[in-house]
């Protein structure tokens, strides 16, 4: 039986959500979540450390459980849903991707900073060779011009990506900005275009709808907003909204609401909401996964976490530069004689 889907949704809670719980997923969590998502008919489920394969580090936070064990668990229960992994070149390698493929992963998502697409060529080519469906994505897309974004998306297309995503990793884009970017991407690339938002400015849903109106075919969501910062477009809400719009996702609304309520809510130590720090991530244009690191640094150095985040935004720090958080915090504390 083929399920009709107008929009392909990828659930990222088991990857992006890893940031929100300091990478503490267990095999039990992942088994429960992946099985429930599979039963709800979610087509793709991303499972990896928050920073992708190989992300378990002192820089980004050590995983509670080896991600390969989590991937294996997800594959074993996800039924018709395909398991995807994230690879950020410079952090994860082809050799880790191969390991994930041997465990049954079907999709590779290869991400780079919005101006650095050429470092993904190696990984996209290899992923294709391994028989995977491939997605290239451009992170922190608010930091580049539309022309640059299009140029980089075309590079990913030329490396054989089946789809290219625009990631609003900082949750900084406004709906009109998403609209013009997705429009330009759709006009210039032949492959599917996707959108991945963050809710730091409470705009993830509005941005997602703008992207869909401009022709985006793939959307990332995180159930119960279980993603970095204030989370992503809330999957179960998106399913409901799209149903009202007559857009088919192939996901069972009642079942996905139950997953959120019964499986995800108990995993969250605190509900995902737009806290002061989350708001500042979006406002300053800072990578959403910096949140917990900035809070810890603020506490350690006795300064306001907002000051750290604003300064990081001012310095145009990109995703992955978590070491800058301590550096900036120490500098700010020093300047104030703390």
């Amino acid at each position, binding site marked *: 039986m083929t399920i009709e889907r107008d929009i392909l949704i990828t659930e990222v809670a088991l990857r992006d959500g890893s940031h929100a719980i300091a990478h503490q997923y267990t095999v039990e969590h992942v088994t429960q979540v992946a099985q429930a998502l599979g039963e709800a008919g979610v087509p793709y489920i991303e499972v990896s450390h928050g920073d992708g394969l190989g992300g378990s580090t002192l820089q980004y936070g050590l995983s509670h459980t080896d991600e390969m064990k989590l991937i294996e668990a997800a594959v074993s229960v996800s039924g018709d849903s395909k398991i995807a992994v994230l690879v950020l070149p410079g952090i994860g390698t082809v050799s880790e991707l191969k390991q994930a493929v041997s465990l049954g992963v079907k999709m590779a998502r290869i991400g780079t*900073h919005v101006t650095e697409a050429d470092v993904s060529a*190696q990984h996209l080519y290899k992923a294709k060779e391994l028989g995977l469906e491939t997605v290239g994505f451009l992170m922190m897309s608010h930091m580049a011009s539309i022309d640059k974004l299009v140029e980089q998306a075309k590079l990913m297309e030329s490396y054989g990506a089946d789809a290219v995503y625009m990631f609003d990793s900082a949750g900084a884009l406004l709906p009109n900005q998403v609209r013009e970017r997705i429009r330009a991407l759709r006009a210039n690339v032949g492959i599917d275009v996707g959108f991945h938002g963050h809710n730091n400015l409470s705009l993830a849903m509005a941005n997602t709808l703008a992207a869909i109106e401009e022709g985006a075919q793939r959307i990332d969501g995180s159930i119960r907003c279980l993603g970095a910062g204030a989370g992503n477009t809330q999957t179960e809400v998106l399913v409901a909204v799209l149903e009202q719009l007559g857009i088919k996702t192939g996901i069972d609304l009642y079942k996905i609401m139950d997953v959120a309520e019964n499986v995800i809510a108990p995993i969250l130590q605190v509900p995902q909401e737009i806290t002061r720090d989350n708001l500042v991530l979006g406002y300053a244009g800072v990578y959403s996964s910096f949140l917990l690191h900035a809070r810890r640094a603020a506490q350690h150095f006795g300064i306001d976490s907002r000051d750290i985040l604003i300064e990081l935004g001012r310095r145009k720090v*990109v995703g*992955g530069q978590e070491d800058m958080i301590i550096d900036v915090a120490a500098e700010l504390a020093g300047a104030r004689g703390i």
Partner: protein
Amino acid sequence: MSKVKVAVLGSGNIGTDLMYKLQRSDVLEMTTMIGIDPSSEGLARAAKLGYKTIDSGIQGFLEQSELADIVFDATSAKSHIRHAKALRNAGKIAMDLTPAAIGALVVPSVNLQEHLDQDNVNLITCGGQATIPIVHAIGRVCPVEYAEIVATISSLSAGPGTRANIDEFTETTARGIENIGGAKKGKAIIILNPAEPPILMRDTVYALVDQERMDEEAIRRSIGDTVSYIQSYVPGYRLRSEPLFDGNKVTVFLEVEGAGDYLPKYSGNLDIMTASAVKVAEEIARHRLMQVVSKGVSNQ
């Protein structure tokens, strides 16, 4: 003192920067720039400085190989595989700045003395040259269970070779952290930052050490000694702050500003490669000259 003759193979940015550094050496004598593109800027600059230029690549050099005893290879990993063989057959010493890693991996502050007789030495990676010495400096005080390094470089200073095979950087650097730095397990991360004006190279080293043998003062001193040594050949190499200690974790923040010989100052990542290569070649040259001198003495 007499000098050892050297040639630079590869007339791109790295090769050209090497040429300027070699001009200052008191033990190496730059004689020849070898390229494959007659119109390359590197060859033109070399000719202007009065060096012999060859635009037919390694083959052209082999026809007049008396021009140099040491050859710096600043081409690509793929080309170096071929070059390494040809140079070895011709009895030349190869300083490999590509990621080919055929010969001994050398970090001057750690293992240079062990490799003075090698005919092919490899400089690992820029991130490796900047961070492996720090891992080693910590490890000689207390054993390092795990070391992780994060190298952040400006996008402009990441060449096409690095971009096409970024796994080679992370994997080779991680291996160097283990085999040369002495960490039981190593991990390397590289980040490209496109900010304008371009950022200086930054490196962060995290090390988890044996808690029982943690000695903050000794580690601080050991790192200080290593930094001073590296500054003798990379003047822009410095600590951004005092090392941080947190339980058994040591965190070291570094910054590398280039000398600006040919490459711009922000590309400290490239500068530390060319400066390290010159440093290694100088030590090998001194070692050779000493052998010649002592042989001469014993013959009398």
